[in-house]
Every structure is written in structure tokens, then in C-alpha cells.
């Protein structure tokens, strides 16, 4: 039967093809609107952070449009973002990147949430030479593949907890001890992200010639750290660093508290996402938390003012304090705005070069990309939970409060 339909199909297919190309040619800028594309996790395991990311993008778009939009070649343009749900699965993310570029004709991409999704989408954007600015893919492996069209505004994962090691070294020096006398304990989830963090920590530990006494890789399937904590009790390290997304953060804080494990310095990631203060109250005190950004910092830009102003606006708009995932998403849009204005063109090649030459300050921090596309101008921040409040304690330049060191013993609290 298909044999007879062939003559009908062929022209139809041709028409469809022509139409899709015609659509592609116009879709990047429609009238006075510049279209950005993003695949985000609205369902599945990343949906909370997917929402933060979307809110971050939307707030930036709203603010930029309110302030007159973007001036390119003497004409004012508004911004708009097309979203798809990637269902928190990398394979779907890659498909959607393809779809955004080929079918919707998007020429300017914003990143998805998580390193895994970014890793799936980057090869696609690279293939079509479409620049992507992202704020939620921190894995080191994104920046050693020679990608030319990927730009990340956030600090990469090996920087996440390295600051804690430097802080421990400073504390040792201040106490008149040699940093090389410090005993380190590491408990990192066995996934690429946490293992990147581990590599960064080990690098810094080596510079101070510290002694790594525990180096556990926590299985992903596991949510029990008792064994590692038993080792901590036996070996009494000076610093314990843990990374394992929200699950690792919640498990570590909870079991440290329940088993009354004393360690002078305890640093983790994802405190905010795991809501350790809300869940464990005073049990979470004195924990050091790595964060990309804190709303108490003093960076600023013309769209949002300083970080506290951004936080206030975000809270008014969405009813909750912005987590750093939202802030870095907003910053990604600001990078696009800056590049479009500097390039003064819609040509993706020129825009790529403009992005590569980015050197700006936003409320989120300074942004300047190295040749691999990662932001080298912004340090990670360490906050310590003090009486249920997050206080910036490192790096010293941005610190608003003093580190309480060592952590008080459980018996003395």
C-alpha cells in the first residue's frame, strides 16, 4: 500500500523540510524578541532545583525587559525563554537540545540543571556551534573536552570544598601549629561530581602536605555513614569533609548529631538544599557549608543592585529566599545580555567570541571565562551555621563573621 502513497509522501516531506528550515531561520529573533532556549527538570529527581533554575532565568528576563530590554544594532529587543521538561534524564536532555536547535531554531542556549544534564547537552550544542551559557553544571569533566561553545558562570566542582582545607591550614598556623600536622578525613559519594570535589580537596591537602587518614567513597545506594563515623571516632581527624548531594548532607549531619561524633572542623556541600537547619536545628550548628553564592555578599550590577537586593526581589516574586542555584541561573542570563550588547549582532560566531571575552561583575560575582569556558573570577564561599544562621566565614575577603573553631564538643553544648 505504501508503494502507491510514495508520490504523495515525497513532496509532503519536501514541503515539511523547507518549512522547518524556514522556521529555523526566523525563530532565533522573532520581531522584537530574542528567544533563548532551555531544557530544565520540571519532573523527576531534580525538579526542585529545576524550579529554582527556571525562577532564576525568569526573574532575569523580567528585570531586563522592564529596564528596556537589550539594544542590538540600534534597536531594542525583549528577551524570552522557551522551556522544555527534560524529566531529569540526560538522554531526554540531549534530545531536547536537538529539538530546541533544529525545530525551534533557537540559537542561544541556557544550561539545564546538574552536571549530568549539561554533560548530555553540551555535545549537541557544540555540534551545531550554538553557544550555551550555564550556571548549574560544575563537573570538571565539562571543561576538559575542548568545548568552544560552553560557558559556565559558577565555580567548578573541584573548588567546592578546597577552601575548607585552606581554612584549616590557616587555623593551624594561627594556633602555632604546622598545617602538615593536620589529619584529614574524606567521605565522598562515588559519583563524578563528588569525586571531582575529592580531587580538589586532595590537591589542596597535598600543597599543605596534610595527612589523609580516611578516604571513603560512599556508595550511591547507601544512606548510612555509621562505618565512616566509627572510623572518625577511632582515628580522630582534625577535619572531616563530606560530599554526597542532599542525601549525603542530611545523612552526615544527622548521624554526626545522633552518634555525637566530635571533630574540630566539619565541612559539607548542599546544606541549603538538604535544609539541614530546618531538619536538625541546633544539631546542624558549626557545620561549614560550601556555597556558590550568599545573599550577604557585596557584588553588584546595574540590573539587580547588590546581592541582598536580588535576594529581596526574588523573595518578593517567588516567596522564598533564593538558593544559589537560582542566583547563578539569573547570572547566566545577564551574561547573555552583556554579550549580545557587546557583540551588537545576532551572529552566533560573533556572540561566541563576545562571550569568551566576558569580564563583568554581577550581583552573583565576577565573571571572566578562561579558554575552557569556566568562570575563574569567582571563588567558592564557605558559610558556617551559627545558631541556625548561615554566616560567611571564608574566604577572608568576603567573610562577614568569624569562624568558630574548633567545633564545640557535643558534651559541652
Amino acid at each position, binding site marked *: 500500500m505504501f508503494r502507491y502513497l510514495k508520490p504523495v509522501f515525497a513532496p509532503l516531506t519536501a514541503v515539511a523540510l523547507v518549512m522547518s528550515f524556514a522556521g529555523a531561520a526566523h525563530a532565533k529573533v522573532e520581531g522584537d524578541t530574542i528567544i533563548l532556549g532551555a531544557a530544565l527538570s520540571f519532573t523527576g529527581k531534580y525538579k526542585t532545583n529545576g524550579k529554582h533554575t527556571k525562577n532564576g532565568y525568569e526573574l532575569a528576563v523580567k528585570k531586563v525587559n522592564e529596564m528596556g530590554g537589550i539594544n542590538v544594532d540600534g534597536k531594542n529587543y525583549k528577551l524570552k525563554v522557551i522551556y522544555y521538561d527534560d524529566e531529569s534524564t540526560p538522554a531526554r536532555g540531549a534530545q531536547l537540545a536537538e529539538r530546541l536547535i533544529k525545530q525551534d531554531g533557537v540559537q542561544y542556549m541556557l544550561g539545564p540543571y546538574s552536571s549530568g544534564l549539561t554533560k548530555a547537552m553540551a555535545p549537541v550544542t557544540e555540534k551545531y556551534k550554538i553557544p550555551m551559557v550555564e550556571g548549574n553544571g560544575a563537573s570538571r569533566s565539562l571543561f576538559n573536552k575542548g568545548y568552544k561553545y560552553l560557558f559556565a558562570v559558577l565555580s567548578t566542582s573541584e573548588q567546592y570544598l578546597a577552601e575548607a582545607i585552606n581554612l584549616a591550614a590557616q587555623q593551624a598556623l594561627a594556633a602555632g601549629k604546622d598545617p602538615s600536622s593536620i589529619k584529614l578525613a574524606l567521605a565522598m559519594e562515588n559519583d563524578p561530581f563528588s569525586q571531582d570535589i575529592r580531587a580538589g580537596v586532595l590537591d589542596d591537602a597535598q600543597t599543605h602536605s596534610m595527612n589523609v587518614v580516611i578516604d571513603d567513597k560512599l556508595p550511591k545506594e547507601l544512606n548510612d555513614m555509621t562505618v*565512616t563515623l566509627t572510623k572518625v571516632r577511632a582515628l580522630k581527624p582534625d577535619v572531616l569533609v563530606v560530599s554526597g548531594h542532599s542525601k549525603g548532607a542530611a545523612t552526615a549531619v544527622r548521624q554526626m548529631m545522633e552518634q555525637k561524633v566530635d571533630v574540630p572542623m566539619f565541612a559539607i556541600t548542599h546544606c541549603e538544599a538538604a535544609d539541614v537547619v530546618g531538619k536538625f536545628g541546633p544539631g546542624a550548628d558549626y557545620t561549614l557549608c560550601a556555597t556558590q553564592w550568599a545573599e550577604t555578599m557585596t557584588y553588584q550590577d546595574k540590573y539587580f543592585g547588590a546581592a541582598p537586593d536580588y535576594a529581596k526581589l526574588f523573595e518578593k516574586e517567588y516567596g522564598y529566599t533564593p538558593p544559589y542555584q537560582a542566583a547563578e541561573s539569573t547570572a547566566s542570563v545577564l551574561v547573555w545580555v552583556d554579550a549580545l550588547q557587546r557583540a551588537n549582532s545576532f551572529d552566533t560566531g560573533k556572540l561566541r567570541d563576545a562571550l569568551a571575552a566576558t569580564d563583568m561583575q554581577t550581583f552573583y560575582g565576577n565573571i571572566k571565562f578562561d579558554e575552557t569556558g569556566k568562570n575563574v573570577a569567582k571563588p567558592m564561599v564557605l558559610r558556617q551555621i551559627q545558631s541556625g544562621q548561615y554566616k560567611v566565614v571564608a574566604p577572608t575577603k568576603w567573610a562577614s563573621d568569624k569562624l568558630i573553631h574548633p567545633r564545640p564538643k557535643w558534651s559541652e553544648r
Partner: protein
Amino acid sequence: MGNLEILLQAPIFSVQLLIDGLLVGSIFALAAYGMALLWGVMNIINISQGDFVILGGYVTLTLYNAGIHPLFGVPVAAVVLFIVGWVIYRAVIYRVVDRDLFISILATFGISILLQQLMDQIFGADIQSVESGLGQFFLFDNQVTVSQIKLVAFAVVIVVGVVLVLFFKKSRMGQAIRATAQNARAARLMGINTDRVYAMTFAMNAALCGAAGALVVMTWVIQPFIGLAYTIRSFMIVVVAGLGNIAAVVAAALGLGAAEQFAAFLLGAEFQIGFVFGLLVVILLVRNMFLKRQRQVLK
């Protein structure tokens, strides 16, 4: 082997590992009871076992958020999951009971995906946990901590085990379940409503998982997508213990729990799960050898 030295020089830490392993194992034992029951009676390997556990955790979390002490979650989650199990049996499982094992694995895999997504929609993807308000026992100059909630879990497992044994021995339904497990066709000929027996079995399994989930959320953390770990663990326990014996299930669960704690301490946490799987292979090989020998004798 620096870690072995620690254990030799300070044997007190091996007490900690042993106690923790036994108590952790007891929580897995509950879900494993259910799996053994289901597998033995209905010849179904339930992939959604772990998702029932997590669902039980969410039931407890809901109670906790409503201001009710989470310990009540153990019976309440069991009852709620009993109903859920019954509904799932009536909707899906009864169609696949007598079919190929592969079909039921697919069906329960589907249920697992459905439950995960529903939990994600209703409760969100964030990590959740519940404070039982119970403390710790500190023994041997604070060198060994025993969390009281894990002791409660241990007690629950023992009580449930005893109740189950009595139920199977004494009650009419228990006897009917055993008869159906032995020979469904003969049981049907004797006037047993096997469809009802199956529904009961499936619902009881879900209830056991629910109770386990209540203990899990008080001991660790839950999230809609981490159920599979519990499915695999219960599967493994059942494979080691065999189908028909509750005491063996408990013993296997506790033994595996303790073994993996020691493995994690000595080899590093990354080998914790790997070690257990390795052990499973060894046990299967050894069992196979024994079974072969028996067969030869029977000839």
C-alpha cells in the same frame, strides 16, 4: 590493612560495627519477609518492593508533619500500605499471577516507576527525614553508640516475625496461604479461594514494607527514587535464606548487615555493596554444590 589494626588494637569498635550491622539488618529483614512471602506463594519477584518501603516512609512523614509521633507511623503505614497493596493486586497483579515470571517482573517494574513518579508529584523530590525523638545509648565510655530507634526496629522485626509464624500456623487464612503456596491447584480443589489468598498475600507484603518504611524514615532519609536499594537488598536476603523460612530470613538479614559493616570498615565504604554481592555469588555457588550432591544421592 591499617583498618584491621584499628580493630585489633581497639576491639571496642568491632562491637560497634557488629551491633550496628545487626540492627541495620533487622530493618531490611522486614521487607525481606514480604518478598519471601510473595515469591513463595505467588511466584512473583516484586521490583516495587523498595517503593512500598519508601511509600511507608512518606505515610509516616505525613503523620509526623500533622504532629503525630512517628512511632505510630509503624502500624499506620502498615495499614495504609495494606490497602494500597490490595488495590494494586485488584488492578494489576491478579492478571499476572499465573503467568510467566518475566511478565510479573515487568508488571511490578511498571508499578515501581508509577509509584516513584506519584511520590515525586505528591511529596516532592527533596530528601526527607523524621526525628523519632528517641536518643542513643552510649556504652563503653561513649565508644559505642546504639541508636534507640534501631533497637525499636529490632524489636518490631522480632515481634512481627513471631506474629507471622503464629498467623501461618494457627489462623485459617495463614493455613490457606500455606496450602496455596504448596499447590495452588490442589488448594483450589479443596475449596480455597486462591484469588483471595493472593490478594491477602500481596497486601500483607505491602504492609510489611510499609512498617519497614516507617522505621527507615526515622533511622535514615527517604527520597522518591531510592527504593531500588531496598528491593535489591531484600531480594538478596531471600536468595540467601530461601523461601519458606522466616527464621532463616531474619538470620540472613542480620548476618548480611553485620558482614557489610565489617567489609566497609576494613575495605572502605566503596566496597560495602560490592562485598555483599560477592558474598551472594559465593553463597549461591556453595548452595548449588550442595544441591547437586543431594540430587546425586536421590538418584
